[in-house]
């Protein structure tokens, strides 16, 4: 599992940006260092090298005395600067120069020496470093030309310190920038997510807040809002259509039924046989019942999820359903058992849940042969209704949840083909997942409760 922060896209974006930014700044600072501090060192080395060449030429021209003169002359120049000279014999006895003795250090392979000046002669308590180059003249004289690089070192240190400080400041500023950027992006994404969740939870009237800045997020929010408007319009259309059906078809059907009832009353009064009227009434009742069930499913499906929900003791509800259906099972000599964990409470619509459970139980009793078993169980995961009836072939398990779908062998049994569709619709608005399984033999219907505190709703 990745930590939550790392899963955040905007955080990863900020991190990537920080890494790229840091690398570029590092490159830039290295270039600055190379063109200042390193350049100064190179310049200093070049000066020393040039001086050695000059002194060597002088020696070649004017001999040792000439060389000593030049050295002394250069040393007496005011200000003395930071030049260091030392001319010694072959056994390192100083002849001229401002260094007491040859430094006890070996030159590197290019002939460069770095050493500490014992007596800087400047009266300061700081340690002075020198960088020098030694050279052997003809006649086995040793010449050392160097420079007190205290100032240079100092300047370089300052440059490096400045660059490091600059890098740290850049990183901190970059970090703050990234954090702010991350927060802003995350906040706007979060506002979109919050609204989406509220819409998923059933409040379709919610819209994503816009800032009217005209940026991409604003455009996204605007587009999503237009999409939601369309969806809401379509949902309203569905509702309106079903309301129209209810009004336009159900009302005349009800009138038909009323007239049949009047007809029966009149026939009874006139001592005529009312059987035909009675049969017609029950036909009309069947039609109306199917119609109501259909409208009810449509209404449940388009309904907003949480309205009229309250806390329900599922065990008590199942107990009531079982108690209601027990005599029916007893008539068929079936054993009906309920095994319910206590204290399972869920948010829901009491009447709809009762209806769904009653439909499941009704089906189980109807399709299970005499002496069969029907077991209902409840735990914190969900409700299971299992019977020992013929079951439903696997290929048809999804189809039976559709409206009016009936198994070939059950066409002759009374029923509308809407019972399980209603169960599916009820499960849907409760966020439950409905699964039909093989009970070997029989059918096992499992209604899984949504995981606690889940944000999204599983479609059934």
């Amino acid at each position, binding site marked *: 599992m990745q930590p939550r922060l790392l899963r955040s896209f905007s955080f990863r974006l900020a991190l990537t940006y920080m890494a790229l930014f840091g690398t570029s700044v590092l490159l830039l600072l290295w270039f600055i260092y190379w063109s200042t501090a390193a350049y100064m060192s190179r310049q200093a080395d070049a000066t020393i090298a040039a001086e050695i060449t000059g002194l060597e030429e002088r020696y070649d021209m004017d001999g040792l005395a000439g060389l000593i003169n030049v050295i002394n002359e250069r040393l007496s120049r005011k200000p003395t600067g930071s030049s260091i000279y030392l001319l010694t014999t072959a056994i390192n006895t100083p002849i001229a120069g401002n260094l007491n003795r040859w430094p006890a250090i070996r030159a590197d392979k290019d002939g460069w020496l770095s050493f500490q000046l014992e007596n800087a002669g400047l009266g300061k308590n700081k340690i002075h470093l020198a960088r020098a180059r030694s050279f052997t003249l003809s006649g086995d004289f040793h010449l050392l030309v160097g420079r007190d690089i205290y100032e240079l070192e100092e300047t370089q240190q300052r440059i490096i310190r400045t660059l490091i400080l600059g890098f740290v400041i850049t990183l901190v500023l970059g970090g703050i920038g990234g954090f702010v950027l991350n927060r802003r992006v995350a906040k706007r994404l979060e506002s979109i997510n919050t609204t989406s969740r509220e819409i998923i939870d059933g409040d379709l009237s919610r819209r994503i807040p816009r800032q009217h800045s005209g940026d991409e997020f604003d455009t996204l929010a605007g587009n999503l809002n237009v999409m939601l408007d369309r969806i809401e319009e379509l949902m309203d259309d569905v509702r309106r259509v079903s309301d129209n059906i209810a009004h336009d078809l*159900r*009302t005349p059907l*009800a009138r038909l039924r*009323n007239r049949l009832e*009047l007809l029966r*009353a009149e026939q009874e009064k006139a001592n005529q046989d009312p059987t035909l009227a009675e049969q017609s009434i029950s036909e009309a009742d069947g039609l109306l019942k199917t119609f109501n069930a259909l409208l009810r499913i449509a209404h449940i499906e388009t309904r907003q999820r949480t309205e009229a929900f309250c806390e329900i003791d599922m065990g008590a509800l199942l107990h009531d359903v079982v*108690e209601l259906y027990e005599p*029916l099972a007893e008539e068929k000599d079936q054993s009906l058992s309920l095994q319910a964990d206590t204290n399972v409470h869920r948010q829901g619509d009491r009447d709809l849940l009762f209806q769904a459970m*009653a439909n499941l139980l*009704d089906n189980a009793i109807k399709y299970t042969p005499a002496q069969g078993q029907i077991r209902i169980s409840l735990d914190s995961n969900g409700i299971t209704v299992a019977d020992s009836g013929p079951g439903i072939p696997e290929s048809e398990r999804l189809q039976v949840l559709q409206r009016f779908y009936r198994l070939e062998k059950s066409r002759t049994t009374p029923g509308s083909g809407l019972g399980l569709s209603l169960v599916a619709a009820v499960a849907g608005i409760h966020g439950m997942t409905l699964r039909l399984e093989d009970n070997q033999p029989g059918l096992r219907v499992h209604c899984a409760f949504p995981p606690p505190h889940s944000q999204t709703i599983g479609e059934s």
Partner: protein
Amino acid sequence: MRILVIEDDIETAGYIAKGLKEHGHTVDQAIDGKDGLFMALENDYDILILDRMLPALDGLSILKTLRSSDRQTPVIILSALGEVDDRVQGLKAGGDDYLVKPFAFSELLARIEALLRRGEIKPDIRLLKVADLELDRLTHTVKRAGKTINLQPREYVILEFLLQHAGQIVTRTMLLESVWDYHFDPQTNIIDVHISRLRNKIDRDFEPALLQTVRGAGYCLHEPAPESG
């Protein structure tokens, strides 16, 4: 009894009025909300039958206005909206009963009767009695002709409800709503099975049969009139 029917669908209103007149009631009709409210406020009705969706002024507004002007006339709300929250809204607004369209006339009639006789039900009365059938609400015992009858808890509640409405028609829906307290639509006539069990216990070994099935309507618990009458 004097009944006002406020219903915009003339056919339904006419059908209700005709049926009620045949059962000996006086019926007035209003076809929109404003007229309906005016008539309900001007006259003294025993019961109001109120459609929820009406032109000019909707049913719930009429009901609220009536209740706020201290009219306690019993009201039965008729509605094409059958979901629980619609029902709850209707009852909260001051309705006494709620009937979802389309309904059988017998259902409406049974509910009107039940409402009109509501005053006769004394919730604190200890002994409920029809003929030689007795129910003692303190000891929770049921006796017929002096013999104690053992009833399951739910059978006891059904019998208690029937005895409270003795002589009236009690529909299956009324039983489901009052005894089980669930508003739902059973696929099977499950109530009949419960009634037949109860009947086996209180009627099978005794004469005369007290629990009658009323065709196309429901059940009625009463002492049959003597053979000669």
